[in-house]
């Protein structure tokens, strides 16, 4: 916990958060934000692709199934919580649910660096799980919202295009391919930029994320207390599901921690863009505040150590 709190990337997030809360005029150039998020997504893919070389296809199957299951179960669960307990409108509930079913690549990057710091090994193909988990929940969310929605049937074409060719997934998959095809030798010439600087770039990005998060916190009064609770309870529930399915599908302690974190993380790139297109009536303030304002910081600061603890528990129990 405190160990995690004293990690430079977490500290950078807090520095950014504080800057925003204190209304400092500190502001990263918007194109730097874009550059860093492109860099991080591509580098994550690249790293995953290189590691993939040492992965046996067979080993990937079970965890992938587990991951897809999470991608379908979590949004349905989230939707029902939001509707029944939270009394949210169908569209809003569905849109929020989609965010929690999908993933945050940055949270994934933070959990990996957490594991490396603690040097805990993880399966070489976890990046695949990241990619796999990004999409299904978005589809589920939209389907839920559309069920017996009077207003004309929707066009899936542009939406699928938006999702699969959107910045987020395209860069992850592109990176995976480049990394996999180049292989460990040839990739070396580009590693100083894409691997060597990775953690520093992550720190800088989290500084900016801190500022952005602080802005979202201002919207909390609009969104009400239930969403705050949901933003903390939901990732814990998803984290538990992720831990169980991770262990069940034979993932190591590290791999289980990663899957738990992926399950617990909420998307803030792919999902918001898709929801804005497919469910324009859903109020962005709700899903953005929940995902970015509450769940993201919760996972970075508290969640990850907790999911690691859960995984240790189940693995200690298992073995």
């Amino acid at each position, binding site marked *: 916990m405190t160990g995690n709190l004293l990690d430079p990337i977490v500290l950078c997030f807090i520095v950014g958060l504080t800057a925003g809360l204190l209304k400092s005029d500190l502001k990263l150039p*918007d194109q730097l934000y874009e550059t860093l998020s492109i860099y991080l997504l591509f580098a994550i893919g690249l790293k995953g692709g290189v590691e993939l070389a040492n992965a046996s296809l067979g080993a990937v199957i079970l965890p992938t199934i587990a991951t897809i299951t999470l991608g379908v179960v979590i949004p349905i669960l989230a939707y029902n919580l939001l509707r029944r307990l939270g009394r949210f409108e169908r569209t809003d509930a569905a849109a929020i649910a989609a965010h929690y079913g999908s993933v945050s690549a940055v949270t994934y990057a933070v959990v990996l660096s957490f594991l490396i710091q603690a040097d805990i090994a993880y399966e070489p193909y976890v990046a695949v799980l990241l990619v796999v988990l990004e999409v299904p929940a978005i589809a589920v969310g939209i389907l839920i919202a559309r069920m017996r929605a009077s207003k004309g049937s929707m066009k899936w074409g542009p939406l699928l295009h938006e999702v699969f060719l959107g910045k987020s997934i395209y860069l992850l998959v592109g990176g995976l391919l480049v990394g996999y095809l180049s292989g460990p030798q040839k990739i070396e010439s580009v590693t100083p930029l894409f691997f060597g600087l990775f953690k520093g770039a992550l720190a800088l990005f989290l500084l900016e994320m801190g500022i*952005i998060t602080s*802005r979202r916190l201002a919207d909390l009064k609009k969104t009400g207390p239930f969403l705050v609770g949901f933003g903390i309870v939901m990732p814990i529930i998803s984290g538990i599901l992720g831990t169980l399915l991770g262990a069940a599908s034979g993932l190591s302690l590290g791999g289980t921690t990663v899957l738990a974190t992926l399950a617990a993380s909420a998307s803030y*790139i792919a999902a*918001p*863009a898709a929801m*804005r297109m497919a469910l324009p009536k859903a109020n962005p*303030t709700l899903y953005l505040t929940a995902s970015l304002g509450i769940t993201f910081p919760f996972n970075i600061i508290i969640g990850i150590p907790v999911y690691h603890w859960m995984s240790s528990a189940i693995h200690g129990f298992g073995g």
Partner: protein
Amino acid sequence: MELKKKRIVTIVAESILETSIIKDLKRLGSKGYTIVDARGEGARGVRSGDWDQNRNIIIQTICSEQTAHLIMDFLYDQYYDDYAIISYSAEIEVHRENKF
């Protein structure tokens, strides 16, 4: 040389609408447009442009009085309920009236 009267329609909208608005403009008879990245504030809150989900763009198109009216009305029906968007129309003078 004599100048001819035309209208310029200016749209300020969340950046995610860019491609779809451009399609609309062309379909409604606009022959061109100019876009600038922007930030701002309105009924839907502050859009400070510091990340993907809160960027605005300004789209301007020069066109005939009639096309301008079509565009204004279409945007009103299509986007005003669900998106952060405003638009307005103004009178300008140009050369090459057939270009617009």
